[in-house]
């Protein structure tokens, strides 16, 4: 009985990962090209921008806020880069993007924390505004990037493709911030119980503010990694990406009500989504079924997670007397 329930618990606790593996096996059976190192590298490269974005989103979600403006931040920062920094070396461009992303995030953060407007509305409004500004600046044209940026896609650091490297760096920094710094633990505290956080003397407003700044920075960086891949920025750039970022985070176990989740889970969510797309590409699926399959898998993953929480709660329910063997 005990061993059985522990095994069940183990399976349940790793249910999303098991689903992921099943998915991989299915795709692998359908195409022998799927199980290639190069393909996994592709998946991670392709997941990098959205994963970086979703990592930023995780900070905001952990404080029970939401940031719908990330797509707008991506679009505007990339547009500015394409228009005004054509000749600049890429590190300057990256720095500029980080700065701009952080600045816009700070604006979101100020309105949310100082004026107390719900973040959903604030970031919805800034989403419109940012996209509008970017369209104005670019005259709604598709802007191209020069070789300085384009060659980055094929560059490697220590043998690791640049996109993966960037993603690993962002992930590592985010993980350290969340788990090893006072700020990170306070993010969890604020999300877990804002009232208690206030009473405990935590600078709630400042913490939430910085989470928006981080989300902004991540949006800028994610956008930068994305443009090294696609080489251009057009009016649909970053459109609706906020939903993908949130979906990745939630798939990875982040709660929209704050205080629960981790960046590792988020990264897993992003990779899961991209694996589905990759697998469908590889098996040359009918284009019409892409959204159907993707939606079904997201649904399944979250359904399993919901079931898992329920069963684990039941298994771990406090017992006040020994459970008699039946």
């Amino acid at each position: 009985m005990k061993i059985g329930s522990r095994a069940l618990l183990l399976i349940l606790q790793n249910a999303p990962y098991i689903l992921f593996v099943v998915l991989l096996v299915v795709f692998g059976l359908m195409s022998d090209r799927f199980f290639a190192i190069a393909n996994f590298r592709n998946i991670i490269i392709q997941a990098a921008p959205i994963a970086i974005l979703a990592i930023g989103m995780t900070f905001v979600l952990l404080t029970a806020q939401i940031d719908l403006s990330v797509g707008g931040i991506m679009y505007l920062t990339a547009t500015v880069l394409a228009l005004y920094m054509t000749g600049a070396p890429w590190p300057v461009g990256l720095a500029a993007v980080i700065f701009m992303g952080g600045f816009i995030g700070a604006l979101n953060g100020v309105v949310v924390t100082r004026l107390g407007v719900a973040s959903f509305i604030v970031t919805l409004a800034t989403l419109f505004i940012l996209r509008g500004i970017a369209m104005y600046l670019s005259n709604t044209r598709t802007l191209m990037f020069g070789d300085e940026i384009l060659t980055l896609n094929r560059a490697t650091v220590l043998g690791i493709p640049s996109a993966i490297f960037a993603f690993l760096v962002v992930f590592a920094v985010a993980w350290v911030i969340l788990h090893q710094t006072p700020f990170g633990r306070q993010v969890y505290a604020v999300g877990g119980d804002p009232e208690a956080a206030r009473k405990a003397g935590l600078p709630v407003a400042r913490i939430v503010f910085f989470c928006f700044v981080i989300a902004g920075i991540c949006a800028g960086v994610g956008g930068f990694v994305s443009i090294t891949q696609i080489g251009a920025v057009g009016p649909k750039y970053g459109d609706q990406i906020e939903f993908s970022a949130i979906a990745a985070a939630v798939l990875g176990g982040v709660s929209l009500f704050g205080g629960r989740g981790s960046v590792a889970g988020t990264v897993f969510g992003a990779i899961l989504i991209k694996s589905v797309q990759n697998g469908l590409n590889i098996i040359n699926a009918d284009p019409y079924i892409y959204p159907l399959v993707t939606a079904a898998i997201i649904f399944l993953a979250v359904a399993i997670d919901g079931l898992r929480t329920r069963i684990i709660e039941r298994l771990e329910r406090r017992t006040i007397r020994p459970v008699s063997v039946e």
Partner: protein
Amino acid sequence: MTGASTPFLRVEGVRKSFFGVTVLHDVSFAVEAGKALGLVGENGSGKSTSMNILGGVIQPEAGSMFLGGEAYAPADPKQAAAAGVAFIHQELNLFHNLTVEENLFVDAFPRRGVLPLIDRRAIRASTEEVLAEVDLQVKPSTLVAKLSQGERQLVEIAKAVSRNARLIIFDEPTTSLTRPEVERLFAIIERLKQRGIAIIYISHALEDVISVCETITVLRDGHLAGTAPKDDLTLQQIIAMMVGRSIDTIYPQRLRSGGGDRIFSVSGLSQPGVAENVSFDIRQGEIVGLSGLMGSGRSELARMIFGLDPFRRGVITINGKPLNDPTPRSAMDAGIAFLTEDRRGEGLLMDFTVSENTVLASLRSVAGALGILDKRAISRVSLDMASAMRLSTDRVDDTQVKHLSGGNQQKVVIGKWLRRQPVLFILDEPTRGIDVGAKQEVYRIINGLVERGSAVLLISSEIEELMGLSDRILALSRGEMVGSFDSKPFDREAIMAAAAGVGKLEAAE
């Protein structure tokens, strides 16, 4: 003030109002280092408010405070903590999604050198140290969500101790502690006093206040009703100061007592890990007390009967009819009412008005065709409830319950169930956190209920209360019914022994 030494904390003429209503008028008191001040008063008399001012949660409109001889005016909780004031709130202030050690240091993590990284090893070490000091045996890396209420309380104390607090405020620390936990808490408070820490202790359990504190300050309606060394006061005097009249018998006499038809019964109720073969019955007009240690499964039993928790086996019968697979709705339809022990979490919609809460469990009775609600009926019904329960406000339609004091909130929860004229009323800790005056009213209400023919299952951790009210007392231990006492006067020791599971052990040997 007594004593020659200058007090460690002095509060003078503090005033505070909310929405134009003054809730503290010129309140003054003082605490000496190494001594405990008891702060008592009815619900809503301003105890928590004055402590919130001390703790920097809110700011007073007038008055001054001195701490260690210096002017003290904390602008936020952080400043209060920095000045050495620790506040253990009535509603515990822990983060359930963080570990014990993280909770201890959440607002001031020690860092590793200049890097903004948490010095995990340092917090592990000092956490272990303070946990030992407060006698709490859990791993520092345990999530607080996994701790019991008592353990959480100790974590809060550990937090205060780890900060080298010089003044620790306890606001209602014992409401969810078992008696042994309470004793342990008192021992720790004693130790803290010996280390020169000043204590402010707020409680409605006046005996506890008397046993812990050197000095007692009484508040009434936000005014200072008096301060005196505890040796100069009797319990009766304190109560008289609190409520402005004297209360002789806390447990009012009932006209009719017990002995109607058997109206409710449970037989063979079992749920693995929670309850084992529980059987009992209740007669009309009878109050059956359910005693047991905290965590003995009394609340779970009540929740199973009311359909909130599942059970594997057993038969519940009410009014002669079986209640199969109860849900709260079917239980209610069968005539059961359930007063939850978690007033804030389950009892009330805090942002809603008194009248909205009052009718929540009996909407059908104020709804006409198509479920359309009769607003006038709702107001009337709620006003009736307010006057019957002697609620502090009669603006039932626009007072949100979160602005009521704990006792008044409790009255609203009870009132909302009384509307249904229940056949069986299950009361889980009906007087938790409410003052003597309010308690007496709740007792009066319970008696009235029984006199009108309802049956009551009363769960309480206050053995006095059980003995004062019940016609019969059952003892539950680890999910098993271990004793039944129906001869008044009750044998206090026997009940407690049974609840602790001792009686059974002895029998087995």
